[in-house]
Structures are given as C-alpha cells and as structure tokens.
C-alpha cells in the first residue's frame, strides 16, 4: 500500500484478531497521485478543491474524459437530459476530515458529502437528468449500470453517465474489513481459485457514457459495446 494512503505496515500483525491491527497490508492501488486535480478547469477555486474528497475530484476528471471519448462537447451537454449514476461505498474522506472538527469549513459539507459525488458532476456539466449515488458495496457499479440502463429504457433520460470510484484513504475501514475476515492475508484476489482466502482491496475510478442503441445509431456515435440485458437481485 502506498505510504500516501496510510502506513499499513505500522498496523501489521499476523493475527487478524489482534486489536487495532491488520494482517493484510497490500492490494491494488493507483500509483498516480489521487489528490491531483485540475480544479480551475472545472471552475472550482483552490479553497473548495482542498476540501473535496479525492473521489469527487477524480470522478469529475474521469467523466470529462468519458464525454470527450464519446465525442460530446460541453456545449452539447449543457442543459441536456443526461442522467448521472454514481457508484461508491467508501466514506474514507469523511472519516479523515472528521478527526479534527476544527478543520471543518464552509466547503466541508459538500466536499465530503457522498450524494455530492453525483450532484457535483451534474452541476459541473449542467446535466438535467436524474443524479444520485448508489451504494451496494462491491456491486455498486454494476447496480448503477443496471439502474442507468433501466432509466434509459423507461425514458427517464436521453443519455446517462455511469461512474464508480473507490479510493482507499484511511485505515479504519481496512481494519473493519480485516476483522470481518473479508481480506486475504496475501492481499491478493484468487477469484475462482482453490487458494481463495479473501480478497485484496483495489482502487479505481471509471466511467461509461450510455445511450439507447437506436439513438446512438441515429446520432452516428462510435458504439464501443452493446448491453443487451442486465438484472439485479439479492
């Protein structure tokens, strides 16, 4: 784990039940600086950017990249009937910022607000469709994708941006996951493997821009893939 997150080795103990310790110190982490953010590009001042969850920062940049990839201009997005479906279940920045109440600022509520992850994107690009954050833990992004597909079919919006963010920033949730036995002592995923003994946490931020197939064909979009169906259950 990069030292920029937290000093995981300082919490290490081979026994997962040892108090305030973890037996999993690795995972799949982004090597780039997760706090880097071109805030002026989005019209956000330096002070507000300081209090923004890095997940909000990266979501904005990734969504812009996604729109650019789709060949959609900022002018076309302005006021457009585009839904924003964001997946997330990590409140690490809230935990981090709440350790000292003296640090709270007028930008703290929006900077760490989980719902703002979606609303800030809708606001920045002036999207007028539905905008919310969905949390179903590890399946959040798939749920968000399914919800967006359903919304497109129901006519809730003409297009949809679907994005997920997962950035590890504090030891607290990591400690809880170790205590619950979720994480592999090897910090490695051995999915469908006889060696499977838990999973290794991973970071990432990704986005997809969706349209109904008939609309994409009509608009001459570059169609990268087609989702023919999706479903959710418990």
């Amino acid at each position, binding site marked *: 784990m990069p030292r920029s997150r937290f000093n995981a080795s300082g919490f290490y103990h081979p026994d997962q039940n040892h108090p305030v310790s973890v037996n999993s110190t690795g995972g*799949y982490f*982004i*090597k*780039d600086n997760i706090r880097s953010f071109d805030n002026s590009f989005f019209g956000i001042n330096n002070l507000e950017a300081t209090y923004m969850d890095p997940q909000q920062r*990266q979501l904005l*940049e*990734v*969504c*812009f*990249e*996604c*729109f*650019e*990839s*789709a*060949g*959609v201009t900022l002018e076309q997005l302005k006021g457009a009937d585009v839904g924003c479906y964001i997946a997330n279940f990590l409140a690490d920045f809230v935990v981090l910022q709440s350790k000292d109440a003296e640090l709270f600022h007028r930008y703290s509520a929006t900077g760490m607000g989980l719902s703002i992850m979606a609303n800030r994107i809708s606001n920045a690009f002036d999207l007028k469709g539905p905008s919310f954050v969905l949390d179903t833990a590890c399946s959040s992004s798939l749920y968000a994708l399914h919800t*967006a*597909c359903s919304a*497109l*079919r*129901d*006519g809730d919006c003409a297009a949809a941006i679907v*994005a997920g963010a997962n950035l590890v920033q504090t030891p607290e949730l990591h400690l809880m996951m170790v205590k619950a036995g979720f994480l592999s002592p090897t910090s*490695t*995923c*051995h*999915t*469908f*493997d*006889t*060696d499977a003994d838990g999973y290794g946490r*991973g*970071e*990432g*931020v*990704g*986005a*997809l*821009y*969706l*349209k*109904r*197939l*008939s*609309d*994409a*064909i009509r608009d001459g*979009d*570059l*169609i*990268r*893939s*087609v*989702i*023919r*169906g999706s479903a959710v259950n418990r």
Partner: protein
Amino acid sequence: MDVEEKEVTDSIDIVSAEGERNHCSPDIAKGMNGVNAPGLSRLGSTFEPLPTSLESSRPDTTPSTVQQNNSQHDNEPIAIVGMGKFGPVVTYEISTN
C-alpha cells in the same frame, strides 16, 4: 380535551407500545402507511390497514407517459459510446492447483 387531541395522544401511546422502532411524532405517524409502521395500522380509520402482501398493496403509480416510453424502449439494447478511467487494469492470476 377534544376528540382530535385524544386521537393524537392515543396514537403516541400505541406507537410506544408497538416498539422502539416506531418512535415518531404524531404528525409523522399520521403520514405513515401500514407498510412503514405495521403496528400503527391498529388505529383503524386513522391509518391504512396492514396489507396481506407487499405485492398486492403496491399501487400502480406509473404515469401513462412513462408507460408509453416503456413500450417504445422496452428491451432495447443500450450502447456504450464513451469511456473514461483513472487507475490500472487489474488482471487475475488463477492457478489450477
């Protein structure tokens, strides 16, 4: 105490008697339906009766316009026309041991 005040007081008592999870103000309690507060349904005319099943109690609130949209786009495939990412592509190592 007039009749209305008595009803409100009764609802508070019954809410408390039905369990901690039903704590709410009389105003909120009056707005809750039988699904949200099963115990409150015993108040009779003040609240909706308990449904026999969630499925049968679910009202059809679908506006006609949405129904039309559904018929237009029902089962229509969805196209992915743009992508963005920040982070590595993760690959899994699967052994055959």
